[in-house]
């Protein structure tokens, strides 16, 4: 019988691996201090980013870069706006 599949989501990338490898990848991420969320029934794990990594980046006061789409699917990066002052506004329809 073929080994059951397992999904690993890591930094926006989604990979299908064998169940044993998936469990091992999740274990290793956890051992490295990363937050890991697992759903054993759905056979999927999400590997997050540690508080230490995020806190270090924020405390440096360098604005973390991101790339997100607009309504037309065009991608925009924060870093492209270097050289101008910027107001960043997060909101939600909820």
């Amino acid at each position, binding site marked *: 019988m073929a080994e059951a599949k397992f999904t690993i*989501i890591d930094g926006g990338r989604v990979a299908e691996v064998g169940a044993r490898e998936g469990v091992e990848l999740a274990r290793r991420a956890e051992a490295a201090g990363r937050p890991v969320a*697992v759903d054993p029934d759905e056979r999927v794990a*999400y590997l997050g980013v540690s*508080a230490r990594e995020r806190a270090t980046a924020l405390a440096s006061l360098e604005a973390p870069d991101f790339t997100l789409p607009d309504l037309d699917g065009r991608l925009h990066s*924060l870093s492209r706006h270097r050289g101008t002052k910027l*107001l*960043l506004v997060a909101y939600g329809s909820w």
Partner: protein
Amino acid sequence: MYEELRGYGFTVITVAIDRSVEDARPWIEAAKPTHPALIDTAHVLTDLYNIVNVPTILWIDERGRIVRPNDVAFGTDIFKHITGLEAARHLAALRAWVRGEATAMPEARARALQSLPTDGDQQARAELGLGEWLYTMGRTEAAARHFVRAGELAPHDFTIRRGTMPMRGIDPMGPKFREMLGAWVQAGNPYYRPLPE
């Protein structure tokens, strides 16, 4: 405001923290913005900047440095009776900074006012990310379990507790939200956390 200040080398970027492009579309189409109006369906921004509610604003200078960390401000006074926050105060401070009439706060002060994520916050964001993936795969029941778990890990994070309500079939403006907010406020917790200055 953006139109008034853009001549000073100023940009606004808005990011809708929403379940889907379609949830964000009517708001963006009504506002007809001339600045980038982006959509974040995977809580990318909230994870990077430790954003726990909306609206959240930050000021970033020409060198790409955060000169005013996460703060609460509204563009208008429609919610003033609920929030007690006046739009004009933030607009005046922003205008003075953009025009170069006032400097932003010193770096040490900006750092002192930052709220940095804890292990619990990041574990909550992992549960949230797992839930969002399950939701996009149509496994809504499994997704809801992880959204609830995420909210338990970070009860102050309303991008999780309220923001995931539409993905759990709950009206985010309805009785379930008011009940959650009531319990939170009754326990002595603030829903909005504006900077003291």
